[in-house]
């Protein structure tokens, strides 16, 4: 019954935290306890072992479990070391709701359910409120659901082989639309709360959704597997190029962060497109970086971005190095796996990716400087994020073993 608990406990935790919001300590305590329970259930869930308590057989794969743990760790980091003037109880409530949704997606037995759950999350996320109208907030995720659904439908049709290709198009385009990567960039309002902004999709919910869609899509359209992978790599390279250049050259600091997530996702898509174990390992490490490094740093830098503060302290440069995937941070190990996977697949691809990797540095320096000078708890949070990344960069095996690689 672990998968059910992994979904239910964070969901209940989110509701309780929201209800107890007027009494922040109680809300935080309840949320933290139930969230911890949910994570414990994730940890205890044997990868691949199905549970059928509710008449639906739920099981969490090893990779999904790893990403869920990373997301939970990220949430814990953000709530424990919140950005200035942030409402910790609301952060926790939204985060737990997200984790519940992610756990449900991870445990869902079929792509049909994954898509429907995505629609549920899209509706709830759009209903959270924010400065953009609901229709605008719902547009891209709902289009993603429609495209994924169309892909699924085409995959199940019998007939011409071209149907499998259409299925691949639907699934890849739907995934890109769900994540908000090029060409389906979600409308981004810099002043919007992170939880209600597209960052929630690209940095928090996206990893699990991508994993669920891609792993199931491979089983669904074996005939078009090569085209599916090629499209992932193509879109990935497009996002690497766009994300790198745009986050470097855009005038708006917040948008620079938004684009940098796209650049990271470009690498993830390339990694998923490389159908060897090294590609999957690279994807896991990159997603770990997105969830546990880039997302917290983005949240912590928002205040100094608003105040237009730029600093050049060691912490800024180390953060820049981490964002750029320089050694010894996790990004470097991920890039190593990516290059090795690409070399096994087709070495010129490794060359292209290698050249693309150099695009990270200028924007990363800019983003690192935008972190300002973290003080007190925030400095400790940044230090923990940096240390985690170094630990995984130097010794990625535990994380990869957890992901079953």
């Amino acid at each position, binding site marked *: 019954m672990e998968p059910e608990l992994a979904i239910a406990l964070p969901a209940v935790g989110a509701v309780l935290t929201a209800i107890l919001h007027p009494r922040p300590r109680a809300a935080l305590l309840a949320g933290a306890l139930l969230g911890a329970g949910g994570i414990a259930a994730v940890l205890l869930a044997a990868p691949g072992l199905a549970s059928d308590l509710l008449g639906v057989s739920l099981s969490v794969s090893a990779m999904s479990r790893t990403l869920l743990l990373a997301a939970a760790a990220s949430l814990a980091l953000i709530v424990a070391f919140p950005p200035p003037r942030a409402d910790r109880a609301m952060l926790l409530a939204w985060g737990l709701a997200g984790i519940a949704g992610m756990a449900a997606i991870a445990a869902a037995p079929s792509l049909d359910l994954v898509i429907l759950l995505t629609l549920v999350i899209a509706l709830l996320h759009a209903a959270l409120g924010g400065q953009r109208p609901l229709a605008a907030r719902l547009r891209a995720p709902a289009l993603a659901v429609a495209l994924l659904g169309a892909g699924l439908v085409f995959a199940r049709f019998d007939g011409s082989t071209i149907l499998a290709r259409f299925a691949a*198009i639907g699934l*890849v385009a739907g995934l890109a639309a769900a994540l908000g990567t090029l060409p389906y*960039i979600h409308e981004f309002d810099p002043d919007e709360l992170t939880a209600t902004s597209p960052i929630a999709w690209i940095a928090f919910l996206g990893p699990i959704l991508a994993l669920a869609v891609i792993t199931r899509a491979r089983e669904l359209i074996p005939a078009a597997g090569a085209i599916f992978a090629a*499209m992932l790599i193509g879109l990935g390279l497009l996002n690497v190029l766009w994300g790198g250049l745009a986050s470097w050259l855009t005038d708006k600091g917040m948008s620079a962060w938004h684009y940098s997530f796209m650049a990271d996702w470009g690498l993830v898509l390339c990694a998923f497109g490389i159908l060897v174990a090294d590609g999957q390992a690279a994807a896991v490490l990159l997603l770990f970086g997105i969830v546990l490094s880039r997302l917290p740093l983005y949240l912590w830098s928002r205040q100094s971005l608003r105040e237009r503060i730029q600093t050049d302290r060691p912490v800024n440069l180390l953060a820049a*190095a981490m964002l750029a995937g*320089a050694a010894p941070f996790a990004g470097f190990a991920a890039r*190593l796996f990516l290059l*090795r996977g690409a070399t096994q697949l087709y070495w010129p691809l490794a060359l292209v990716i*290698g050249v693309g990797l150099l695009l990270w540095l200028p924007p990363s320096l800019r983003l690192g400087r935008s972190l300002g000078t973290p003080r007190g708890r925030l400095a400790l949070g940044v230090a923990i994020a940096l240390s985690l990344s170094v630990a995984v960069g130097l010794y990625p095996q535990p994380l990869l073993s957890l992901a079953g690689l």
Partner: protein
Amino acid sequence: MPAIAIIAPVAIPLATAGSVAICGVAGWKIDRIVLAVGTWLAIVALIALWAPVRSTQDLGLGQLGFGTPSELRLDAVGFTFGLLVLVPAAILLTLQPRPWQEGTVAALGVAAAVLAVESGGVILTAVAGGAAATLAIVQLDVEDPRASRPPWGVLLAAWLALSWVGAILQVRSGTAGYSAVPVSALTVPVFALLAATALIASGLYPWRGWPSQLWGRPALRSAGMAVATLYPLGFYLLVRAYEIGDGRYPQFWLQVVLAGIGVLVAFGAAARAQGASTRRAYLGEVIPGLGGFALIGISVGTPLGLVAGIATLAVAATLAACLPLLPDRGGPTSLVVIAAAAGLPPGLAFGVRVLGLEATFEAGTPMGLIGIAAAATWILSIIAAARAAGLPAGRGHPASETEPRVSMGLALAIVVAGPALGLVLAVLATPAQALVMPSPAGVNLGGLTAVATVSTVLPAVALFTPVLLLAVLAYYYAGPMTVRAQDRAAFVVLPGTDRFARLREALRSATVPAQYRSLVDLRALEAAATGGGPLLWLAALVALAFAVTR
């Protein structure tokens, strides 16, 4: 000694960094002492680990997650390069005051550099070398964000390229361990990538690279540390390449090309040095010049060349500690440093250069021609040195960072070590050479007093000791040399330099013509990509459909 002990030269600087950070946060002003103790302790540990056994010691680290099992390896090459990194770093960290943040990053950088040379395979070297590069950049930017520093992207590219080399080796042969990779895996393209990595990692360019630009910074704390920790790493890769290739590079022409690049690097440094406007600018070209000669020696592909190259790196490492401590003013100290760097007889710099050139001639054509070019380059560097003796000192870096007596001592050590050339080779270079390039049967590079080459014997003690004694007596009797510092025009203006400068300026100031700017208007592109909405999305879908169904 247990195998785990070979982690000490890495762990001690790491612990030192932690301790310095704690001292800094706690406000205890003992961080400099901690740095000194830590780095010297690392040197002691390295010697204590190597000296008693003088044979390779391995420590399996198991599966770190980089594909194949990783291991730490302390062998002759690791020992030599470990000393080349640690000694100058220890001297600088001991004598130069620096804020605790800088000290922490510097100690971490030292640990990373030592890990790079102690790792048993390409992958771990790439990770550690990349970390050392990152930390050096951080250190330089923290010291002065506006001053010139190595381009981070270029260094990152170098270490990424090395990780790609490791990946290729793993894919082809199942391992990237230096001693385990089969010779056949080191193909020409793989070696070319490795060599490019090495050249970029150490900034070995004919034009003015970071190793010379760094000396133009207003402060020389981080510059010295960056050169001490990063500069040897590229050469380390070239030496290890011999181990992978079982004592040779895949093709002889690759050696010729590398040696040619070495001549160009040394010549570029000498050409810039003879046109330097200040003594400081001249000193900035000293290490690139030595690097060029070291590259020539290492590329020759003979045991003699390799030991000469490694010994030249030892001179460069000593100068990397000496130059930041040298105050920017005239006087005997700067003259001795110039003499030591220029390779006047009977100094160590003279002896190693002689051996390096000899190796080129003994390797046959076309290396012999490269040797002639290198000899001409040496003459040009001597011209630059002679001219530099009378140059104005240049903008002085803070006196608190300098230590004239130690600087003088290090320069004198280079000069006095000339007669001990055989000893230096026997301790530092020959064991490393023997590991990566076994000498042909019966060929022995000689003992402590003389260096035997294929065609001659260099009686270092017998020839250089009298010269040294005579020099000491003669200079003492001659009294101090009074040279009036004055602005001096470049000795020779090399043809084409002004054209090259114009071309560079034109490239730097190149802009997109006005009528085409709209094509590369990022704002418009950004607006289209983010605000395009349904139409763009549908167009993208159609494009995807067209792409996969045509």
